[in-house]
């Protein structure tokens, strides 16, 4: 077996050193009835690298690759071009095969990267600080809700109708067990987000309002009034950003008064990967930092006075606080955070702004073009790179028909909200720098045919 260096004679020699005759003696604590006499029957035996590669490649070929067809899916996962150097750098063994930096003297590479990442995220979000990442956007969103409960000592969270339904679903799952009360609503096919409704819902029992920016239908709205309404009732405003590239063009949620900003960092560096691993982003104001979940990297000095970095404020975490920890989270999403950070460093502010501008321009062009298709109505009035169309037919079968023609047309609201008739004709379309005008033309033609 190519990954196992011990030779048969090594094994014999080592057993002799240990003082046992056979490997079975080392498993003596396993009760007799549970001992497997040999390899589990019915399962394949070891295979060559070539054979495994053939098997896995055959599976990979059964999927339609986003980059090989006109592609318009978003709704929490976006296809952007990732520079080649990002993947090269994260595959360096010193990053790829390192552990959590528990021995900081020999983990400064990971630690300095995390410090840079935290700073990048905080600046992008307009928050004072950010942590070293969470599992993904959906779990970061729930962690923010529980954090708001700890800070405000209140149990009612108001969730915007524009929050990603999977994020709502995760929060509902968790709230069922923690006893948190969640106010949720379904979105409607209207042009503007539900800011006014949310403002009216904030009361003295509200721990937080959770609002997605841009929202699940691609809509954007000013958060300032909502932040003021929250703060007037001593509640927190949590903003959720599932498309961080948007913040290259849009005002930062922190700048508009959000107390906690969480997000999905997948757009930068990480790729689609059928849903994971992704990277949860988590920023907040300075005064909330001790209630923040997840790992934090901080600056300090070594015994010679040289600048260095360590994991810090770890008394918030499970390995020390055990049942009193702020979260049971143990890992972060280190390698994806690295990919995010490298991509962001390559872009820089000027590049991020340019990238965001290209995305928006492409989306505006696509929205205008698709709105000319008979049976298509553009719903979203203000948007970044994603907008919602209302079709003359149920969108889900339309998406399937277009997939048969080799077009991945977008996310039907029927997929996200099964059984909701009011939303069934909705189609969310995302456009990034990877979308060409030809792609848009092909989609427009396809829609024209399928809707006629």
């Amino acid at each position: 077996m190519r990954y196992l260096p011990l030779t048969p004679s090594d094994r014999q020699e080592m057993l002799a050193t240990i003082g046992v005759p056979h490997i079975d003696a080392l498993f003596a604590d396993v009760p007799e009835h549970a001992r497997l006499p040999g390899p589990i029957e019915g399962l394949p035996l070891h295979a060559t690298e070539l054979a495994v590669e053939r098997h896995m490649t055959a599976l990979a070929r059964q999927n339609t690759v986003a980059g090989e067809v006109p592609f318009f899916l978003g709704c929490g996962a976006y296809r952007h071009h990732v520079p080649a150097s990002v993947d090269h750098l994260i595959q360096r063994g010193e990053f790829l095969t390192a552990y959590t930096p528990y021995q900081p003297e020999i983990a400064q590479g990971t630690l300095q990267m995390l410090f840079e990442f935290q700073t990048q995220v905080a600046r992008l979000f307009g928050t004072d600080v950010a942590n070293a990442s969470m599992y993904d956007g959906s779990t970061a969103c729930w962690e923010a809700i529980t954090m708001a409960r700890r800070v405000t000592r209140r149990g009612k969270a108001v969730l915007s109708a524009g929050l990603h339904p999977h994020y709502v679903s995760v929060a509902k799952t968790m709230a069922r067990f923690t006893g948190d009360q969640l106010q949720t609503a379904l979105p409607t096919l209207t042009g503007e987000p539900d800011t006014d409704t949310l403002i009216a819902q904030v009361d003295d029992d509200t721990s937080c309002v959770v609002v997605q920016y841009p929202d699940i239908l691609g809509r954007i709205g000013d958060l300032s009034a909502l932040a003021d309404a929250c703060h007037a009732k001593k509640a927190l405003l949590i903003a959720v950003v599932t498309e961080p590239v948007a913040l290259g063009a849009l005002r930062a949620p922190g700048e508009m008064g959000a107390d906690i900003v969480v997000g999905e960092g997948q757009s930068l560096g990480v790729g689609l990967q059928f849903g994971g691993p992704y990277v949860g982003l988590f920023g907040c104001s300075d005064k909330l930092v001790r209630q923040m979940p997840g790992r934090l990297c901080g600056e300090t000095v070594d015994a010679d006075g040289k600048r260095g970095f360590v994991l810090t404020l770890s008394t918030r975490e499970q390995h020390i606080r055990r049942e009193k920890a702020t979260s049971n989270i143990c890992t972060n999403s280190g390698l994806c955070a690295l990919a995010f950070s490298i991509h962001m460093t390559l872009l820089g502010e000027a590049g991020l702004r340019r990238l965001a501008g290209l995305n928006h321009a492409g989306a505006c062009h696509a929205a205008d073009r698709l709105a000319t298709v008979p049976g298509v109505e553009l719903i979203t009035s203000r948007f970044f790179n994603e907008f919602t169309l209302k079709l003359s037919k149920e969108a889900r079968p339309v998406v399937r028909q277009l997939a048969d023609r080799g077009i991945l047309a977008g996310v039907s609201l029927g997929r996200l909200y099964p059984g909701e008739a009011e939303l069934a004709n909705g189609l969310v379309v995302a456009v990034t720098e990877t979308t060409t005008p030809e792609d848009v033309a092909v989609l427009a033609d396809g829609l024209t045919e399928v809707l006629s």
Partner: protein
Amino acid sequence: MSVNQSGWRPERPSAADAGAATATGNRALMLEEPLIFEIGSTRTTGVDFADGDVRHDRLGDLTRKTPIGLPGLSEPETVRHYTRLSRQNYAIDLGLFPLGSCTMKHNPRLNERIARLPGFADVHPLQPVDTVQGALGVINQLAFWLIDLTGMHGVAMSPKAGAHGELCGVLCIKAALEARGDTERRVMLVPESAHGTNPATAAFAGFTVEDIPATAAGRVDLAALKARLGPDVAGVMITNPNTCGLFEPELKEISDAVHAAGGYVYCDGANFNAIVGRVRPGDLGIDAMHINLHKTFSTPHGGGGPGSGPVVLSEALSPYGPLPYTARTADGHIHLIEEERAQEFSDEHFGGKHDSFGRMTAFHGQMGMFTRALTYILSHGADGLRQVAEDAVLNANYVLRRLEDVLDAPFAASGPCMHEAIFSDAGFPDGFSTLDVAKGLIDEGFHPMTIYFPLVVHGAMLVEPTETESKATLDQFIDALRSVATRAKAGDPSLKAAPHFAPRRRLDETLAARKPVLVWKDKAPLADAAE
């Protein structure tokens, strides 16, 4: 004759020249690297963009007007920055990484190649199901293997990491109790030696945590456990093999007693690497166990994640697992069930009793880890995985027996260990501790073992070599650790100042925590990006 006109001839330095300071702070291949905020500019970008309009016409009054403060670097500078940073890290690719309970084994590069196939890496989670049959096939095949390797009934694939899997299992227990109207069971029993995540998870799910004591032999005290069982106990969380590196020989008796008392057994599967292919946890009566794909099945740890924590479930708990969910039906078929089909599937296969507690995460879990883990599993096969456990246990016992004369090994007398060997600081002179041994090992070129965990052993040193280390590497490590341990016992003062040769010496963690500096603050504002 012509003389040596260039003047170049080799010279050997005298010993007195060693350790000279440099003007740059660099030491040859050991290069200092500033922060991107100190070397980058907001006007620089390392990415070329296509020509085209940049418009802001549908952003309304939300157009960003203030600078963000994000520095950019050109591509060559970026590659150099991160390459330099990488060289300040220890890694499994560089050497033995014996972190107990963390299972730092070799990461095969085939797994990386497979995960990057466009058919896996460039697929959107919400694509129509017909267009992602191969991706679902990977999930199904991996689920099939995990069920067979553990002898369990179902598996929840979506948890994002071990702790997330633990939460999944505990929520299954809570949902099962709720489903039978048994709401008085509020206590979760957790051994003192457990990972900190266990009590944190139980508390998060609303349970009250109570400790179970350990015996002098480092195992769960069965009598004490039995005495505590009752109508208020929801279940127990047990790590097997446990965090002292020992198999719990009475786990089946524990499971039977817990079941008889109406509770469920959660098994922390962090240490499954020790028994994969030799023991099926399902045969020990457990109800739920998470599997850290990044440990047993060698998906890379990446400096702290991403992990992946699928949870195998007993027949009793399978109905409650999260969506999306895979289960094997009587015909041997494995299904992937999302919200829409959940009810239909429940009616068809669970007599309408299927009652998933919902989603734990957006989308389908850590697909990129599934492809790597399945690649790893197929490479080893049933025979290779069994050999994995045997070699992991053999290596740990070899380390144990070759070090027990210089380091206190509190459980060595009670028999073999499993995949990790535990030592303590007993016998060290005043002022010398486990930390000094760890830092001394750094100077010897090894990553230290896990230290001060588990809490039940004073000054614990938990060594997990894993199966991917050769005997020669183990011998080098053992010799190094023997030397450092001997120095600690002799009170060698130079050890207190170790590491001497790492990129940094001991760091001031008190300063970091008292005055947290968590983000870079500009000494002067960064130049604004060109609008």
